[in-house]
């Protein structure tokens, strides 16, 4: 996994709540055996509308997306995180994320930052004209206007993101413990 420390640049001020993973990447794009080639289908129904933020030249290539409450709800499809990554987005800011989406994002080095609604509202305003900076090490989002918003992040996820750690590789170091658990399981609950 690619390490993430600082994400800096313009942000798509999307701001809608309940953006589900069917909106992020519709099911007809899921017929792939690859992780790539999904950006073309990302936010298809939003991009079909005129004046949408994704096709606005103002935000072209923005590395940050700012969304409303409950971003990534619905289906568990990791294709949603892959598609967002492929668009060049490295971080999403929202008041709340669905549990499955934030997990998927993390596994792909896509930073999800939870901030209170009022802070997100402020950032949506700033994003229309100016860049935003996310500093993972210090857990802070800043703007050129002295805004400074602290965010919380799970310490394990923070470490993995900062160091770009391979979670499976880490777990495989615990193979012996897994085998021991399996031995106990076989005697305690042999039907499993």
């Amino acid at each position, binding site marked *: 996994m690619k390490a993430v420390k600082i994400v800096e640049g313009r942000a798509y001020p999307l701001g*809608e*709540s*309940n953006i*589900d993973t*069917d*909106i992020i990447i*519709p*099911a*007809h794009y*899921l*017929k*792939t*055996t*690859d*992780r790539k080639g999904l950006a073309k289908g990302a936010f*298809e*129904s939003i991009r079909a509308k005129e004046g949408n933020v994704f096709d606005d030249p103002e935000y072209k290539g923005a590395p940050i997306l700012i969304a*409303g*409450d*409950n971003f990534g*709800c*619905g*289906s*568990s*499809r*990791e294709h949603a*995180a892959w598609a967002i990554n492929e668009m060049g987005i490295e971080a999403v800011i929202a008041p*709340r*994320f*669905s*549990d*499955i989406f934030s*997990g*998927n994002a993390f*596994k*792909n080095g896509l930073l999800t930052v939870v901030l209170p609604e009022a802070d997100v509202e402020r950032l949506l305003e700033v994003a229309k004209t100016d860049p935003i900076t996310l500093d993972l090490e210090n857990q802070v989002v800043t703007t050129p206007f002295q805004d400074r918003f602290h965010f919380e992040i*799970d*310490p*394990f996820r923070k470490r993995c993101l900062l160091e770009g750690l391979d*979670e*499976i590789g880490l*777990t*495989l170091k*615990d*193979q012996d*413990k*897994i085998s021991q*658990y*399996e031995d106990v*399981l076989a005697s305690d*609950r*042999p*039907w*499993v």
Partner: protein
Amino acid sequence: MTKNPRTLYEKIWDAHIVERREDGSALVYIDRHLVHEVTSPQAFEALRQAGRPLRRPDRTLAVPDHNVPTTARVDGEGHLLPIADPQSAKQLEALAKNAPEFGVRYISATDPEQGIVHVVGPEQGFTLPGTTLVCGDSHTAAHGALGALAFGIGTSEVEHVMATQTLILNPAKTMEVRVEGKLSPDVSAKDLILHIIHVLGTAGGTGYAIEYTGEAIRNLSIEERLTVSNMSIEAGARTGLIAPDEKTFAYLFARPMSPKGDDWEKAVRWWKSLATDEGAVYDKTVVIHADEVQPSVTWGTSPEDVVPITGVVPDPASFPDPAKQAAARRSLEYMGLEPGQKMDGLAVENVFIGSCTNSRIEDLRAAASVVWGRHVADNVKQALVVPGSGLVKRQAEAEGLDEVFKAAGFEWREPGCSMCLAMNPDKVPAGERCASTSNRNFVGRQGPGARTHLVSPAMAAAAAVTGHLTDLRHLAPVKMGETA
């Protein structure tokens, strides 16, 4: 009272800890892994590239369901029919190749036991109380109905489970959803869960593991409980547990993969110890009154947008918060609805009876009992019944339900996810409405521009025979000898 009273969730969680970490997370053992064709190919490929084996193929079961066509899969002579969409065909071929390569049991699309993963798991006895069960699909919550700690995962986690049979997880907060009192006989489990999602909101369960308790839950059959647990994710909760009881044990007894002999006795003893202890504390409790639940329908593009069938489309201005007002306005525009419009009487061109929420035998019986003696209305262009598995299909055929549906003008299809997410050719055309027994009314879910109204199987059947959303309690009776 027990010394350290624990909830059902906490007991299963504790029993699966391989290692607790200092940061509060834990390495959690996964007992069961269901695999389908859409969210697994990248995981298998990553294992292959890293030269890693799949740790426990004996705890893994693969079934294709999302992409499979629901039209005939073999010709009259039993030869396989080609799959029209080359991308779907490629994805299905990948699973057929990957599963045996990694030693995983694979139930093929032409196997009589094939079906939707969440129908197949319980019906095979692969799903067991007190197990941890995962699948790369958010409706894995369904298996919580049998008392399994079951939740949907992404493809990276699928790969992690394949390689290590574990996941690194943080414990969830616990939420009790207690349904007090009795449901009215004309109200289904689907109406109940739609009502619950409406009360909790689509993100109300985020961060929580739900446990459904109370008289109305205990009174549900196992298949009805599967419907309730299935849609937990629509309230944001990854998992929705129900304590295993005598009904659970009776349902699982002698299933193909259920424990047998001494193991069965031991298992039942342990399963009985799992119920939440008296005095255990949930982080949150929500009380639902069963007598307030009515036959229900969704009006918008979020599963929380629920009203009783007797209700009207709400005015966006009636929502307290500006984000909800904006969302409601967008929903109404997409759905082609006006505030104040009555739900009863809204014409539908499509009816879908199926999906992991409502495609089991009791669902088909409920729908068939409404359809019997009636006919699909002329304005309904597409009326599909898609059984959840080959076994459900054969059971329905043995009971003659297929004949009831076909005589009424329904199409009787092969099992799969079908029109729930429109990955296969079963789609709702743009701008048309569908009364659907599935679980999501998201924008474009049943096809680009499709307008979904989530309902129970009986309500979907009533919509099919009248040509519009309707209160099934007011259907004109069928006169004997004068069937339509």
